[in-house]
C-alpha cells in the first residue's frame, strides 16, 4: 500500500503503527439547526470503556491514544524507555490538564494531534503550545482530516509530519509546503518576522 505520510518534504513509509480507538456510536448533537461537527475543548472523549477496550501490538513502535498510554503506562514502561511509544490526542483534549503527569515530553519520539474536521483550527494553536510553551523538540504529526490546504499552516505551527487523508493524493499535498516563500509573521519554522529577516 502506498504511504500517505509526508515528512521532510518526502513521502515516506510510516515506521509507526497508529493505534486507533474502538469505534462507538456517538449521539448526533444538534445546535442552531445544524449537526455539531466539533467536540468542545474539554469534552469527555474517548470514554473509559473505549480506552480499556483498545488493543495494541505487543512489539514495534506504536503511536497510542494518550489516554490508552496513561491507562497502561506501567506495563509499557520498558517500551517507553526504548523510545517505542508515541502518543496522539485530539484537538479537544486539553494538554494543560495532563502535561504534568507525562513528565518531559521529549521522552516521546513522536507526538501526533488528531483533527476530526478540516476546519478545526485548534490544531495550529496546540502545535504552537507544544513547541513554545512545552518545549517539545521531536516529531510532531498531524493526523485525521489533514488536507493540502492546512499543511503550510501546520508546518508554520510546529508540525513536521503530515498523514494526509486517505482519499487525497500526498504528492499533490506536498507542494503546499512551499505555498509562500517569505511569510510576514514570525512562527515556528521561521522565527523572525519578515522585517527582521530582510532589509528593505
Amino acid at each position, binding site marked *: 500500500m502506498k504511504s500517505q505520510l509526508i515528512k521532510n518534504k518526502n513521502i515516506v513509509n510510516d515506521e509507526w503503527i497508529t493505534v486507533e480507538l474502538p469505534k462507538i456510536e456517538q449521539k448526533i*448533537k444538534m*445546535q*442552531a439547526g*445544524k449537526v*455539531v*461537527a*466539533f467536540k*468542545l*475543548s474539554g469534552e469527555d472523549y474517548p470514554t473509559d470503556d473505549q480506552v480499556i477496550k483498545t488493543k495494541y501490538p505487543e512489539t514495534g513502535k506504536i503511536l497510542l491514544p494518550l489516554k490508552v498510554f496513561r491507562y497502561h503506562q506501567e506495563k509499557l514502561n520498558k517500551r517507553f524507555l526504548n523510545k517505542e511509544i508515541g502518543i496522539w490526542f485530539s484537538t479537544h483534549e*486539553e494538554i494543560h490538564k495532563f502535561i504534568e503527569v507525562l513528565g518531559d515530553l521529549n521522552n516521546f519520539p513522536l507526538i501526533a494531534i488528531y483533527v476530526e474536521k*478540516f*476546519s*478545526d*483550527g*485548534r490544531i*495550529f*494553536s*496546540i502545535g*504552537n*503550545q507544544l513547541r*513554545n*510553551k512545552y518545549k517539545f523538540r521531536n516529531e510532531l504529526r498531524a493526523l485525521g482530516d489533514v488536507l493540502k490546504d*492546512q499543511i*503550510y*499552516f*501546520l*508546518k*508554520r*505551527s510546529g508540525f513536521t509530519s503530515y498523514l494526509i487523508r486517505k482519499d487525497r493524493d500526498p504528492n499533490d499535498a506536498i507542494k503546499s509546503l512551499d505555498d*509562500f516563500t517569505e*511569510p*510576514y*509573521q*514570525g*512562527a515556528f519554522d521561521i*522565527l*523572525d*518576522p*519578515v*522585517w*527582521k529577516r530582510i532589509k*528593505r
Partner: protein
Amino acid sequence: MLRVAIPYGLLSSNQLFKLADIADKYDRGYGHFSTRQNIQFNWPKLEETPNILKELAKVEMHAIQTSGNCIRNITTDQFAGVTYDEIIDPRHIAEILRQWSSFHPEFALLPRKFKIAITGSKKDRALVQCHDIGLEFFKNKNNEIVTKIWVGGGLGRTPVIGSVIKNELEWKHILTYCEAILRVYNLYGRRDNIYKARIKILVKSLGIEEFKKLVDEEWKYIKDGPNTINSEELNRIKKYFSEPDYKKIKKDSLKSHEKDKSFNQWVSKCTNPHKKKGYRSVIFSLKETGNPPGDASSSQMRAVANLSEEYSFSEIRVSHEQNLILADVQEDKLHELWIKAKKYHLVTPNIGLLTDIICCPGGDFCSLANAKSIPIAQSIQDLFEDIDYLHDIGDVNLNISGCMNACGHHHVGHIGILGVDKDGSEWYQVTIGGNQGNFASIGKVIGPSFSAKEMPIVIKKIIEVYLNNRNEEEIFIDCVSRIGLDPFKKYVYQNSEATE
C-alpha cells in the same frame, strides 16, 4: 458576491479606477462600500472570479481574508493622519497588524470571523468598543505611546460592548498580545454553535478576569519574542504614510461664499476640520435619496478618483459609515470641487444627519437577510427630503440591518432598525439610544415590530418626540438619555398596528 479588501479603507485613485472598471466589466456598473471599509460586488459570475482577481492584482488589491473564520480587514479612523484631534496615526499600527494577520498560520481557521479596529484620536470614529479586539492608542503620563485594549465587543445577534483587558500596553507588544488573545480564543471559543462562536461569547462566559488570566498565561511565553515590534520597523512603516506636500495657506478663503446657503450647508455637514490650516477633509455622501446606502456607480467612482487626483493627492478613503472621503482638500478649492461633485450626486449635505443611513445590502441582495433594508432606508430618506428640516433635526445616526448579523450596525445607531421574519413576512424592530464612539452603548427595543409601510411614520414620530422635548442645542441622543424611552414608546404606539 465578491468582497475586495481595502486595508483600513485607504485607496489610491488608480485602485478606484480599477474598481470602477471591474464594476462595469464584471458587474452591473456599481459596487457597495461596506461597513468594514471594503467594497462588495454583488453580481459577478463565479467563473469570472479568476479574471477579476487578476485585474485586482494589477493594482495590488485582493480578496484575501474578506470571508471565512479568520482575521478580517483591519479598520480604522477615516480621518487618520489628517484630523485635528489625533494623538497617534493609527494607520501605522493598522499596517503592521495587516501584515502580521495576513496568512497567519495559527489563525486561519478560527471558531468564527475576527475583526480588529484601531483608533488614535480623542474621538473614536472606528467603533473600537464594538470589535473582537479594539485598540485605542494614546500617550500615557510619561508621554509613551500605549494602547488600551477592548476585547469581546461586537454587534451581530448578541450585541456587546467590549471589556477592557488592558488599560495600558506599550505599542511594541501589540502583536504578541493580540496573538495571546487569539490563541485563547482559538482553543476555547465555541465551535459547536455558529451563533455562539464569536469571542464575545467566550469572554462573557468566562468573565473578563478569567479570560485575561488565560491570555496573560499565554502571553508570558511570547512577550518580548521575535514578533515584538521595534522602532526601526515602526519608522519604516511610518515613511509610507508621510505627509503630502501641503501648501502654506494663511487667509480664510471660505468667507467669499458666505451667501451661498447650500454650499455652506454642505461645508458644515460634509467637511471635517483638518490639522493643517487652510485644508479640510471632504466627505462624499453615498446616501443620496433613492440611492442604496453605500452604493457607488462606476461613473461616481471615476469621478471621485478624478477629483482626488485634482484636489487631494490622488488618495481616497472609505468610512465605516459607507461614504467616500478626500482627506486633504484646500479650503479655497472647496467651492470648485463642490460644483464638480454635484454633477455626480456626491454632495448631499446629510453627513451625520438622519438620512446618512448606515444600511446593509439586505433581502434584495443577501441570502442571510430576513427582510429588505434598502427600500426602508429609501422610504425614510424620501420622507425627510427637506434639507432644512433635516438640518434642524441635527445629528442622528440611523442604522438598518436586514437580519441579526447586524451588518448595518443597528445596535449602535441612535435609532436602529432590524429586519425580522415573522411567519414568513418582513417586520422591523426599532431600537433607540444606541451610540458609537467613546460612549458606545447598545440601543433598547422600544416595543413590538412594525411593517415596512409603517416605518417612515414611526421614524417621523420618534423625531417629533425629540423635537418637542429637546432643550436648546441638545442633540437627539442626549435628549434620549435625558428623557428615557417612555415618551417615545407612548407616542409611537398610539393607534399603531404593531405586531407582537
